[in-house]
């Protein structure tokens, strides 16, 4: 039987057409068709001055704007300087703070959204409330709920004063406690745990072959994180936060049954990149919970130097040199969804000759289609939400 879904969906999500070939309730094959609202962004960046094309990169995706903006700026800086180490330390710090705040509100909201996939309304609402608190915090400290207009080639457009850094650290500490309580609520919900277990398995070999990135890769046992593997910006100074590859402990079992999602088991002192072997929805949710926890701690470390009074006359931005035309600039970040790689080539007048962005969603969409077969059609929304990919990132 064929079950067509979309491209128009209930709710305010973007267009994508899913065609399920099923035998009874089981999905035999899934054909996903995306790119319905391709905007030609790469083309529209051509001919713009490299500084102005930041607008294009920043608006590529609604919920990874900071990650895309930083990656684009790094690509520009690779062509025009300053060298990665010569960015003003406060500017590099603010960029990393924005990137981690972005990860926080995404992951917290996504954990809540998975509850929506199983109809656990209390969890959905808790997640939405915490996400909203984080978004308002973004607006208070960096001026934009979705962290736009923070980054600029050569530095940042907005600084973070010591007083704000202090306040942000205090607020985050409070929100971390609330997030832990939210996780305890999920841990006690048997009907949620049952639905997540063994649903939408992405086997490790498939994840490796398809080059899965981000949460989807780490939940399938592929230990990758660009913040550790190709350190950039302020992350280079905080490498000890990421530990050695393969350092993350196996999940703890609370009895004889399979392990369940819940509050992160890593204690305060533990460092590493959360990785699980199971590859199911449960593992993807747990990776998000653990990364949220890690981000809260990483933010405390990142905010530490920002709480001190900056040296007088340290600029937020340094001027760029002329753009190199003999090579291409590459910039990358680990967005909440995984690797976001921006590639830039300039002409002799400092304008964009070619701009290309490959975001995590582009890399991971083919994985969704391969995680679905064998599951029930009604579980697909849950599987899709556990990947939480973006349509706009393909329609760029």
């Amino acid at each position, binding site marked *: 039987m064929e079950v067509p879904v979309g491209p128009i969906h209930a709710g305010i999500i973007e267009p994508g057409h899913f065609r399920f070939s099923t035998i009874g309730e089981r999905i035999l094959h899934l054909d996903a068709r995306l790119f319905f609202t391709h905007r030609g962004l790469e083309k529209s960046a051509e001919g713009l001055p490299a500084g102005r094309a930041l607008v294009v990169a920043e608006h590529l995706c609604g919920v990874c704007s900071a990650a895309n903006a930083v990656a684009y700026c790094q690509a520009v800086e690779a062509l025009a300087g300053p060298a990665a180490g010569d960015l003003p330390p406060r500017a590099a710090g603010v960029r990393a703070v924005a990137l981690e705040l972005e990860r926080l509100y995404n992951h917290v909201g996504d954990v809540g959204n998975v509850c929506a996939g199983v109809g656990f309304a209390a969890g959905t609402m808790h997640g939405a409330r915490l996400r909203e608190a984080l978004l308002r915090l973004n607006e208070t400290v960096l001026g934009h709920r979705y962290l736009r207009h923070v980054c600029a080639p050569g530095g940042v457009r907005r600084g973070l004063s010591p007083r704000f850094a202090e306040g942000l650290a205090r607020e985050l500490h409070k929100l971390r406690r609330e997030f832990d309580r939210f996780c305890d609520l999920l841990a006690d919900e048997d009907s949620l745990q049952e639905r997540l277990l063994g649903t939408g398995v992405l086997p490790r070999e498939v994840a490796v072959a398809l080059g899965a990135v981000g949460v989807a890769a780490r939940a399938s046992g592929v230990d990758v994180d660009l913040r550790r593997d190709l350190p950039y910006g302020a992350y280079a100074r905080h490498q000890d936060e990421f530990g050695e590859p393969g350092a993350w402990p196996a999940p703890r079992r609370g009895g004889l049954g399979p392990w369940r999602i819940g509050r992160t088991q890593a204690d305060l002192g533990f460092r590493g990149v959360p990785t699980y072997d199971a590859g199911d929805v449960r593992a993807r949710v747990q990776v998000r919970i653990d990364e949220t926890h890690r981000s809260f701690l990483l933010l405390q470390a990142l905010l530490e130097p920002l709480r001190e009074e900056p040296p007088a006359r340290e600029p937020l931005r340094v001027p760029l040199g002329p753009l190199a035309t003999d090579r291409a600039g*590459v910039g990358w970040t680990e967005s909440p969804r995984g690797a976001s790689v921006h590639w830039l080539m300039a002409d002799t007048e400092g304008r964009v000759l070619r701009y290309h962005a490959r975001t995590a969603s582009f*890399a991971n969409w083919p994985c969704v289609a391969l995680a679905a077969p064998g599951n029930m059609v009604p579980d697909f929304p849950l599987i899709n939400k556990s990947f939480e990919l973006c349509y706009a990132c393909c329609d760029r």
Partner: protein
Amino acid sequence: VPPEALVDACARQIGAGARLLTVVATDERERDGVFRLRYLFAAPREGSHPGRITSIELRLDAAHPSFPSVTAAAPAVHWDEREVRDLFGLEPRGHPDPRRLVLDDDWPDDRYPLRRVLPARPRSRPGTRAARAARA
């Protein structure tokens, strides 16, 4: 690399544990008469040395822009190659999926949006005086 060495070069990267970063095509016919295609890989971290980025570059003849598909050796690039075919008209020979990925089925067969012969933005913006004058 020469076209016949492309698949091997990419397979060697994957075999060494490198991960695909991105695939970029450029239309550089104005500069030196060719299309270029680049496969970027990130080599894994070794001890305290951070990973390294390798770019495998291929020149494609403007008259017959096609290249051997890497998808069979590195499935991670299969969407990238379909996208390059749609937007640049560079044909991945032996790609397992001949369908369009990005463009609508009704899009004309011989128009490739990212080739530089098509302007990046309309010469006159709709609704402006210049556009009305052009229409009249």
